[in-house]
């Protein structure tokens, strides 16, 4: 293979950026066209093999016995009865897997099976493999675990007040996992200059991903000492690393992780999970293939979903609504383990400045450990809760100032090609267009505030909200200087092009992205390209399907690999035809002379003559995001190669007596840089609207509180698909979608993220629409009917027409955040470092 041969690199990029962001739509054959996904027909034929669809000869079924206590010490585990049950082939407890793991290097705080303490109801304690699933369950029932109950910790207030017992022996102190305190610019000066200042308190209840597919894995340890695990994971590379750590001394190169197609992920399959680790170990113990398939209830225990976040935001604005100072506090209920929590904490502060400029910005964030299923990344990771707060607060500010909320936003757009107060680099920025589209489409200017009454006596309201989101995180989960994504192309004399990439299709179509980009560059039909992904033995590393990184990062890597292949084939064809390489065109599965299109050959013949000239053909491409301008501690979370923008207007119809409302129509505009495939991009936007609607109206991961005695305290209230309400066909509104394409120079053909951003404005837009209709504020998500009713009651009684957390001093926990890191903003002449940052201790060499 010709691997990164410098002689075959493109000599000169044809456009300003290597990623061809300026290429005209009409000059492209495949990009932007609504061609079906590479695996679309398998999906509609029942042929796509998900993890639980796999089986092997002699396969055993594994089940996990989970804790029935929210916090307890494990006194003893007696497995003798279970071991005696016919059909039981293997039993593991915590002592068999003593090495901890976790997705982030700073929080390696999980064990596959709890060794000495359980921290939430559902924490796994024992794993049992048997010849049949029912035998494994029965064996679990025969295990006798003796617990000694410990004090439970239920929420952020309790966690802040409880120094002992600590759920973990790491973290800041007591049950505080993380504290962040970042100050950009001069807050006091901003507030002093402000024409209007207001402070609000918001709460965003946790909710969960609820992927249709329950997590499942199949592990096999062969007699040559190689372990393979097929698993419904969004992050095969990170699972690979976790297994290599936990299964030490099994070498990493003896471990193969194959990510099966995910039946929905939404962030819920991004951690290395205890069931995956236990299945791998059990395969090694028994010498037989091990299948583990979680029940729906167990998926609720796995969780890693949206953090419940309590927020307090003080904002000072000019008469026109320009934000001079923002002082934002976030208190995250992290659940029992670290998971992505450190990143989540930073994300509740990082993107406030990207949608509208914030001149001076202070962020304080605290994440707490509590006795509930661990929280982590869900679609919009960490940025959803503050976006709810900020957009509702801006609506209130517009009201206070007597400005149209759309106008307020339009006159305060973050400038394109600029640095924010916290040193995030904004590139293309289509929010203005987005707002204009939804304002025009919905009739906002004439219909807002009109309180139209429907036939059944409901009052109509319109609400607007906006957002921005990342196109992938600028830094990887673990510190390294390696590419974030790699793509390898194999070109074969049959004319077949195979793209190998570690990325994982979770339904968003990332496999197809590889096909579209390679197809466009090489002028061949994307549906004829073979795509091999998510297999750590076969494919180059890609960090995984999270933070909306795949289209941009694997897209750019695929483009580089394809450009290199094109360069090589151009040489081969040029020599054969005697036509200068620069004149060759790749289109319609042919390579031909631009000046004489008949002079050319099929793509297959082009590959053959190139192979004859240079030998076996293979190229690689890789992508590393641009360096961040933020150099202060904590500046690693937030930077992204580009940001997407979206604006939503939601129409609601509220019953003024009961608070029951429906959402008949949504107008959503999303700036995605460039639609690589129109239909698939539309699907991502509509799916985001759907999920945001569910979060706003009904979805919540709620736990039984202290009024429930004994071990039912902190049990998930509704761990089933029936009771955990999610929108059905009946709740889904009509959606008018506007695809805005503000090409970004950092994206493949100008593309930015598409699948997460439009979720964010849904919840605040609904809250704002409810206010427009009936004049009450719900400062808490979900905006459930009973909260609207409570606010209506308050209004009737002449009280503040609001439902939400206490705005008083007792509203947020008492936490000593210590001194803030002080960073001068770009407009103060700052260089991205903190001027009072203590020197970081150099890590001792290993």
């Amino acid at each position, binding site marked *: 293979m010709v691997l990164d041969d410098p002689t075959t690199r493109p000599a000169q990029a044809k456009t300003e950026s290597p990623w061809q962001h300026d290429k005209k739509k009409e000059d492209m054959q495949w990009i932007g066209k*609504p061609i079906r996904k590479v695996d*679309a027909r398998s999906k509609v034929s029942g042929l796509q093999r998900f993890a639980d669809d796999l089986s092997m000869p002699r396969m055993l079924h594994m089940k996990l016995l989970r804790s029935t206590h929210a916090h307890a010490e494990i006194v003893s585990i007696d497995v003798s009865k279970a071991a005696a049950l016919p059909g039981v082939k293997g039993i593991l407890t915590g002592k068999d897997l003593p090495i901890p793991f976790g997705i982030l290097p700073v929080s390696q705080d999980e064990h596959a099976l709890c060794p000495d303490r359980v921290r939430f109801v559902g924490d796994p304690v024992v794993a049992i493999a048997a010849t049949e699933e029912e035998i494994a369950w029965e064996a679990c029932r025969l295990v006798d675990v003796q617990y000694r109950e410990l004090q439970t910790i239920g929420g952020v207030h309790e966690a802040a007040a409880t120094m002992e017992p600590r759920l973990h022996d790491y973290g800041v102190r007591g049950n505080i996992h993380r504290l962040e305190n970042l100050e950009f610019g001069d807050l006091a000066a901003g507030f002093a200059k402000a024409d209007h200042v207001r402070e609000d308190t918001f709460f965003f209840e946790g909710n969960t991903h609820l992927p249709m597919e329950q997590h499942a894995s199949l592990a096999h340890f062969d007699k040559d000492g190689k372990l393979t695990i097929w698993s419904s994971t969004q992050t095969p590379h990170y699972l690979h690393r976790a297994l290599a750590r936990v299964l030490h001394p099994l070498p990493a190169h003896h471990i193969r992780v194959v990510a099966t*197609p995910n039946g*929905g992920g939404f962030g819920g399959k991004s951690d290395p999970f205890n069931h995956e680790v236990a299945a791998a170990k059990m395969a090694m113990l028994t010498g037989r293939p091990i299948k583990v398939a979680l029940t729906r209830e167990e998926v609720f225990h796995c969780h890693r979903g949206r953090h419940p976040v309590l927020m307090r935001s003080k904002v000072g604005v000019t008469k026109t609504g320009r934000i001079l100072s923002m002082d934002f506090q976030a208190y995250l209920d992290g659940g029992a383990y670290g998971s992505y929590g450190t990143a989540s904490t930073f994300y509740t502060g990082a993107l406030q400045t990207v949608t509208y400029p914030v001149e001076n910005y202070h962020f304080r964030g605290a994440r707490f450990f509590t006795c509930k299923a661990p929280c982590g990344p869900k679609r919009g990771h960490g940025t959803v809760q503050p976006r709810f707060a900020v957009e509702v607060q801006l609506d209130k500010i517009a009201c206070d100032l007597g400005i149209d909320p759309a106008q307020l936003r339009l006159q305060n757009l973050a400038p394109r090609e600029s640095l924010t107060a916290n040193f995030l680099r904004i590139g293309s920025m289509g929010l203005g267009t987005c707002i204009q589209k939804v304002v025009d489409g919905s009739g906002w200017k004439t219909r807002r505030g009109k309180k139209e009454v429907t036939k059944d006596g409901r009052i109509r309201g319109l609400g607007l909200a906006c957002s921005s989101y990342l196109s992938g995180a600028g830094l990887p989960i673990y510190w390294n200087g390696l590419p974030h994504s790699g793509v390898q192309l194999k070109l074969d004399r049959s004319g077949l092009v195979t793209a190998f990439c570690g990325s994982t299709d979770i339904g968003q179509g990332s496999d197809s992205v590889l096909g579209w980009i390679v197809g466009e560059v090489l002028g061949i039909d994307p549906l004829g390209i073979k795509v091999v992904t998510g297999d750590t033995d076969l494919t180059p590393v890609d960090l995984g399907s999270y933070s909306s990184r795949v289209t941009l990062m694997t897209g750019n890597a695929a483009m580089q690999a394809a450009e290199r292949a094109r360069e090589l084939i151009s040489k081969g064809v040029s020599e054969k035809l005697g036509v200068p390489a620069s004149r060759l065109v790749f289109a319609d599965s042919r390579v031909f002379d631009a000046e004489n299109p008949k002079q050319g050959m099929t793509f297959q013949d082009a590959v053959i003559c190139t192979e004859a000239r240079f030998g076996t053909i293979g190229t690689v491409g890789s992508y590393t995001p641009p360096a961040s301008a933020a150099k202060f501690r904590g500046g690693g979370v937030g930077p992204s190669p580009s940001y997407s923008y979206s604006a939503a207007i939601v129409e609601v119809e509220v019953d003024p007596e009961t608070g029951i409302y429906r959402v008949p129509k949504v107008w959503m505009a999303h700036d995605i840089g460039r639609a690589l495939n129109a239909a698939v991009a539309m699907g991502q936007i509509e799916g985001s609207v759907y999920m945001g609607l569910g979060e706003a109206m009904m979805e919540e991961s709620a736990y039984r509180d202290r009024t429930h005695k004994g071990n039912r305290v902190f049990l998930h209230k509704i761990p089933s698909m029936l009771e955990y309400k999610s929108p059905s066909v009946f709740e889904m509104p009509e959606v008018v979608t506007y695809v805005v394409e503000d090409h970004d120079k950092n994206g493949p053909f100008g593309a930015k993220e598409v699948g997460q951003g439009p979720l964010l404005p849904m919840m605040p837009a609904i809250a704002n629409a409810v206010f427009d209709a009936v004049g009450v504020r719900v400062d808490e998500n979900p905006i459930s009917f009973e909260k609207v009713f409570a606010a209506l009651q308050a209004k009737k009684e002449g009280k503040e027409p609001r439902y939400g957390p206490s705005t008083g001093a007792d509203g947020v926990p008492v936490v000593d955040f210590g001194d803030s890191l002080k960073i001068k903003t770009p407009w103060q002449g700052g260089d991205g470092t903190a001027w009072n940052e203590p020197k970081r201790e150099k890590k001792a060499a290993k």
Partner: protein
Amino acid sequence: MTDAKKVLATFQVNGEPHEVAFAPHKTLLEVLREEMNLTGTKHGCELGECGACTVQIDGTPILSCLSLAVDAVGRDVRTVEGLAQGHELTPLQHCMADLGAAQCGYCTPGVLMTAEALLRDNKSPTRDDIKQALAGNLCRCTGYLKIFEAVELAAARMRGETAEPSKESIHGS
């Protein structure tokens, strides 16, 4: 429970006989997936809440996770694997594939088995008819809109019309 005596029975699945030995308490879902290796039928809850396991019995969509396999013996069982005729997909399968109505594809078999039954009984379903039919099928990816559009497009094509998806549904407004 685990030593329940197995029964031997012959199922008609997708027009073919399958002779299977299984424990009598097994659901149709379990027997299809585990004994016949017809894994196209999915499970999302195994409690009748999500619709992913929908198959047709004598043409009627049912939840295979709530049906005992023994009750399906001697009846005409159809699963997603049995929709295509030879290599040719049904109009609905084509439309769902082309419109991106299957994102992760996990709820798709259940949606297809429900909607195919609707299209057989109702040549011109309204949006409301489609919603009524699909009320028991949860989907977390699509927001259902591309599914509705696919059913409508397939209905039109099955009526012999040369229908194409609307520009708005593909490119936005």
